[in-house]
């Protein structure tokens, strides 16, 4: 157990002079330009910016779906540059949880199976994953709908399943991409409350959004513009109690 000082937490994700360039025909678009930043353990960040500011690119890099053209990215101490495609997949299945805007559940699987997909692809499946998945479903309020298919659920319910799925592998970093973008405001608040809860548990969350009121709910806000950091707004809320439960090792 580390000390509960809110300042010097070990970084979960560390970007160093990261550049990502897209080639659109003859044009060169620098989606991220020498960006350096680190996300500390247990922090809840909202990444904001207008479209084209590079926030999606940042999310893809953080999620190990993409690799930087230059600079380095370390997740949980591992540099992704040297990793093969298979190893990146393994990192995703062990350390990351994704929540997407359009839920992205797999239609032919039921709720429980959807939650278990990340476990399915682990080289060494986390023991007791199914019981844990049931617990998660219970927790997001879908304990009675384990055998329902995604198309039988409302948008809010689907997103709850997606959040449960993002937690099932006990990730070190949870990435959410406009997680409330497709939901009505009431449901969006419920989902955001869920994120608050996760934050309160000490999990590290990076939430990409362009909605100011969503961004305000987060602990810290990172604003991007044209691939650069525009502003960093830290600690507008007091950090919730952490350290009792180390993320990634919750049992």
């Amino acid at each position, binding site marked *: 157990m580390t000390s509960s000082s809110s300042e010097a937490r070990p970084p979960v994700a560390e970007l160093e002079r990261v550049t990502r360039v897209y080639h659109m025909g003859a044009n060169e678009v620098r989606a991220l330009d020498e960006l350096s930043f680190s996300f500390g353990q247990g922090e809840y960040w909202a990444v904001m910016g207008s479209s084209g500011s590079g926030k999606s690119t940042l999310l893809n890099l953080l999620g190990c779906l993409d690799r930087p053209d230059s600079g380095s990215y370390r997740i949980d101490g591992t540099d992704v540059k040297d990793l093969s*495609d298979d190893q990146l997949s393994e990192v995703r299945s062990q350390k990351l949880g994704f929540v997407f805007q359009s839920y992205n559940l797999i239609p032919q699987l039921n709720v429980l199976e959807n939650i278990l997909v990340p476990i*399915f692809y682990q080289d060494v499946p986390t023991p007791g994953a199914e019981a844990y998945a049931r617990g998660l479903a219970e927790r997001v309020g879908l304990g009675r709908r384990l055998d329902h298919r995604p198309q039988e659920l409302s948008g809010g319910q689907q997103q709850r399943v997606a959040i449960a799925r993002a937690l099932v592998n006990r990730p070190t970093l949870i990435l959410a991409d406009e997680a409330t973008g497709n939901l009505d405001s009431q449901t969006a608040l419920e989902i955001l409350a869920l994120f608050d809860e996760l934050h309160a548990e000490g999990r590290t969350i990076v939430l990409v959004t362009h909605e100011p009121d969503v961004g305000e709910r987060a602990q810290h806000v990172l604003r991007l513009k044209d691939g650069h950091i525009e502003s960093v707004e830290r600690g507008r809320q007091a950090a919730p109690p952490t350290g009792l439960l180390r993320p990634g090792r919750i049992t």
Partner: protein
Amino acid sequence: MSASSRPDGLRFRQGLLIAGELVLAATYWLVGDNVLLRFLLIGVGALAAALYLALAPGRGPSLLRTFRLGVSSLMLHKLRSLLTTLGVLFGTSSVIAMLAIGEGASEEAQEQIRQLGSRNVILRSVKPREDFATGQQAVRVVSYGLTEEDLARVRDTFPAVTRVVPVREIFDEVRHGSRAMNPRVLATVPMYREVTGRVVSEGRFLADADLENTANVCVLSDEVANYLFPFSSPLGEQIKVGGDYFTVIGTLLSRVRPANDAAPAGSSTAEVFIPMATGQKWYGDMQVKIRAGSREMEEVELHEIVVEAARMEDVPLVAAACREMLARNHAQSDCEMVVPLELLLRAQETKRIFNIVLGSIASISLLVGGIGIMNVMLATVTERTREIGIRRALGAKRRHIVMQFLVETVVLSVGGGLLGVALGLVIPLVVEATAHMRTIVTPSAPLLAFLISAGVGVVFGLYPAARAATMDPVEALRHE
């Protein structure tokens, strides 16, 4: 170091050889001595093993779970999956049905030839082509054919000949009471039955004593017996051949005819056998045939000589000698020669070609079925781009995606293959019942069809699966 590693290397090589022998023995046990099929079997097996080793993760999702996932994905579009399997289904069933029908037809032909005796060479008298030199004549005598001299020559001088059987054919009506028919009346010797391998069904065949006594006895083929004596045993009864009465001493099983040959009584399987000497006594060498508008006299000493070679290997030798003899002594080509063994070999060759042609036609339909599957799988991959992106984002490796789609393709093609095998086993039964054709399903046919369909699944599934696996996860996730 080297001293200890050498025996190991040797043992390894020996082990490999033994394993190879075992594989060969296993394929032999499965499909018999069919080089093509065994090669195919080993090929498919090796491909499957290689794929499994390359793709099956020692860890991660088990093959069973991937299989269950594949099935549930396919069940999401039941009609589409069913329609996709139809191509392979019909391909597989047509391979089996065609091979079964081909096999049956050739087996039938071969059996007919085998009845002539595979060690025999048959010489026959043939009426030479008439030329118009003689002009219009009401009555004339034609003299042609094999002679007693030929018989003696073959019997006394040819090497490797064990038995020689003369046959004379008599053209006359056979009647019993009010029933009459025109079977082939054959005057021959007791050896005839053994040489041609005919089977006595009742009583006995001609004996030497019958010849010595020039007895008026006869043996009927079952067909004649059934026609003349529909309700009773013909044994001991008298029938009339031409103007004379003959006592029936036995019956022979008729030669097998194609089941669909609805030829009436009087065809070549209706036969009456009488002793050679008796035939000679009553008919001499001269025969009268009454044709429309003219009477024709024919003088033929022997209609047929059946030459039996000592062994099957001697048949070509005996055949060559007979051919030589016929060429020398029958310049007007009033004889022909039938070598059942040659016919048999030719029939087997025909069957082989037939099988290849039928097999390749059916295989093309399997290929088309495979292309159909590939087409659908490519569409499926595009349709499920987003799912692929999700799975990749959640930690699926490329090989997991390959396995997922490959398993789906193989489930489709093997499912189609299994249904096709079932249908392919039913079709020959239907053909047999409706068209009265003989069909033979060799065990290798369903196996071959099944293996090809499984192979089709793997081969045609690889490309769509590879396409799915090489998608960029970011792009795939963005796909609508």
